């Protein structure tokens, strides 16, 4: 098929991305509408001719309805050509540091005709509720953050950062994961490729082992994210005025809204002519597989630390709450740490002006900022949280912050809670109980880490022994072959 892809690098409100226009694409990756009923719709995320993830919208008339998600198959059943292209995209971007547009090209060719936003973002291998992503979507269940719109986000942009696996857990290889972890330790960059499916969720096309290893090593996991551009935004300034029909002013996907003025007529026309639920060429092959899937639950056990660290990742509520904030400055954080909801700015004329940081409600400001920092800047979150806890005048938020830190196994947090526990021997405080619970969790965490290290060392030793045995066997074989050759030789 003679596909045509036009890529345009863009930057809107500091969000860098590539707008890709795909014409006559291969249609090997996408979301297809399988069936609709009076109030429900069933979609499938598919790769090639394999339905991978089933997405059921239980109420199509309610845009806030959470969807039911279930993984029904794995992309390991697809042809190798797909994997080669995905691998090329990930390697180009994260290993060879090529530009986004060029890196995305191999995977863009696999998509359907339409407009796509391609960007690089930090992704979380979790289900938005603190559970590790692999093996977690094997039963049909409602997942929070999958609805089409989120009440508190509105038209604001966010990155669909939670990942859904596209290969089955039975394909997980612990050795491969440890190998990648070793390479991460030695400074090599790894990343993945993800495709936005619904709400805050993207399907991880490439990089399952890399995501797991990054989680183990406490390293950010970045992906080349592809989001179909399929929605529109109304002019908010005209809404609510009865005499004016609100106008559509921008095309949108979760990551960015692109104003119509910034696009060429041809691009807008391509967007308007493309239908969201066009059926792929392989629909006839995919359809029978959608009803004949078996549960793909695997007994594969992942390292205990993976589950523990997945629980520390931000959840849907944190992403939702943080989406309304573009950036938080150090001055704003200092003001909040001092118990203020406003901070002072000096305008161009040198006048001092007092501005509200997030909201006039202090507690809600703290919740929002904590969510924002935990999603976007983990180290700043730790510093901010501990500075709040150290301010004795802010006891009203201490319980909330301490509970937030409870799931985070980090030496800084541990050190602080140790201090609180020691202090509690003299005087009970509001977070003494939380500090005690943290002590127990920390001990368990250390034990788990030790077990993990031991099992890793045993595996490494076994590997080394195996390698030695193979080398020796090869040596003996080559020696025998040499002797045989000598025997055969006329000399």
């Amino acid at each position, binding site marked *: 098929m003679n596909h045509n892809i036009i890529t345009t690098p863009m930057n809107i409100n500091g969000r860098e991305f590539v707008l890709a226009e795909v014409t006559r694409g291969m249609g090997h990756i996408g979301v297809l509408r399988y069936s609709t009923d009076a109030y429900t719709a069933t979609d499938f995320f598919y790769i090639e001719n394999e339905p991978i993830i089933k997405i059921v919208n239980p109420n199509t008339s309610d845009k806030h309805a959470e969807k039911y998600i279930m993984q029904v198959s794995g992309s390991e059943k697809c042809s190798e050509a797909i994997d080669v292209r995905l691998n090329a995209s990930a390697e180009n971007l994260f290993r060879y540091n090529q530009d986004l547009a060029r890196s995305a090209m191999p995977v863009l060719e696999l998509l359907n005709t339409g407009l796509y936003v391609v960007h690089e973002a930090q992704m979380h291998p979790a289900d938005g509720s603190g559970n590790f992503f692999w093996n977690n979507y094997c039963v049909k269940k409602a997942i929070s953050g999958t609805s089409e719109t989120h009440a508190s986000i509105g038209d604001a942009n966010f990155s669909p950062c939670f990942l859904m696996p596209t290969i089955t857990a039975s394909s997980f290889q612990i050795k491969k994961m440890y190998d990648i972890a070793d390479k991460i330790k030695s400074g090599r960059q790894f990343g993945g490729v993800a495709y936005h499916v619904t709400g805050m969720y993207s399907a991880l096309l490439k990089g399952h082992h890399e995501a797991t290893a990054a989680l183990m090593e406490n390293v950010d996991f970045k992906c080349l994210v592809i989001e179909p551009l399929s929605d529109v935004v109304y002019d908010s300034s005209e809404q609510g005025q009865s005499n004016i029909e609100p106008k*559509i002013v921008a095309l949108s996907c979760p990551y960015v809204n692109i104003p119509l003025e910034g696009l060429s007529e041809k691009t807008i026309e391509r967007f308007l002519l493309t239908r969201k639920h066009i059926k792929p060429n392989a629909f006839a092959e995919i359809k029978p597989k959608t009803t004949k899937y078996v549960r793909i639950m695997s007994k594969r056990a992942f390292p205990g630390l993976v589950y523990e660290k997945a629980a520390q990742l931000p959840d849907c509520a944190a992403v939702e709450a943080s989406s309304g904030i573009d950036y938080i400055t150090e001055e704003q954080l200092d003001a909040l740490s001092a118990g203020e909801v406003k901070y002072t700015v000096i305008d161009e004329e040198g006048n001092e002006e007092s501005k509200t940081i997030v909201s006039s409600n202090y507690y809600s400001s703290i919740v929002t900022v904590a969510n924002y920092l935990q999603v976007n800047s983990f180290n700043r979150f730790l510093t901010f949280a501990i500075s709040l806890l150290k301010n004795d005048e802010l006891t009203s938020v201490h319980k909330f912050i301490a509970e937030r830190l409870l799931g985070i196994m980090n030496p800084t947090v541990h050190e602080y809670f140790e201090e609180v526990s020691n202090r509690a021997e003299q005087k009970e405080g509001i977070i003494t109980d939380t500090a005690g619970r943290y002590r127990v969790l920390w001990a368990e965490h250390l034990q788990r880490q030790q077990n993990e290290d031991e099992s890793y060392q045993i595996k490494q030793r076994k590997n080394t022994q195996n390698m030695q045995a193979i080398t020796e066997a090869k040596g003996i074989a080559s020696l025998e072959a040499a002797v045989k050759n000598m025997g055969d030789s006329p000399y």
Partner: protein
Amino acid sequence: MSFESLSGVKINDSETKRAFIIADFFSVCESDEGVPRIYKWSDFQSVTETRDFFSLKSGADEFEIQKSLIRDPAVLIRVRAIIEGAIADNPNIDYKHGKRILPPKTLCSGCEIPTEAYVATGAYMEREINNSNITLHNPGFDKLIWVFAVFAAILVLALQFIFWGDITDISNLLVYTVISVFAGGIAGMTAYLFCAYGAKTLYGRILKDDPALLEDITFVICDKGFMAAETEVYDYSDIIRWNQVEYFIETKHVYIVFNKNKAVFWLPKRLFPKDIHKELGDFIADRLLQK
């Protein structure tokens, strides 16, 4: 949205220097404006389809798309399917259309068609539609023609006796009777031809309104509902549910399903093997009231 897998259509109007794009959104591109005006289908209050144009109204904006701008009948059918599919999803839109043999797609909803379904493909035949139209407009039509013929015969007989007649002459009586029977027959035949002409005219009008009558149609009858749609646009994912309609009648050639006393679905018996006609009739009768 029903019929959501059909690809979008751009219609250029060189006279008004406008272009319309009909797909998931409705958009109007004016040649002098850089950015097109984009409307969600839910923005529209009314849509009208006449023989010559589609008219769409959103607030103060009203757009008229002349059908003559779409030269290819297949594209016209696609445009109508997209519009009606969008209206099916937005039932608040007031939709008016001309006479039609195919059911309006505004009644459709998405559905996974079960494997056990009666499916047939074929075009409508003018004869079966005309016959059924005559029956539809005059339910007791056969009896009426007979009564009219007999009445005409008696009238001619009476007139002969008044003007010419001597009833005592038996030979006269025989001649007058034969002439009266002939006259009655001719009157009956004329009445039938008159009605047939009326039906043919009606069919001509419907044909002008609905070019789909010349296309191959896919018919589906299943437990969940029924459908008749142009084969070219139908992908077996939309259906009209039984609870959307009221009753059906059976004529010699077709089953006709009614909604609000309007015929919405004509199912030609010819497309199914003769031995399942009774089974098919019973299947519909199990789900709808028969009149």
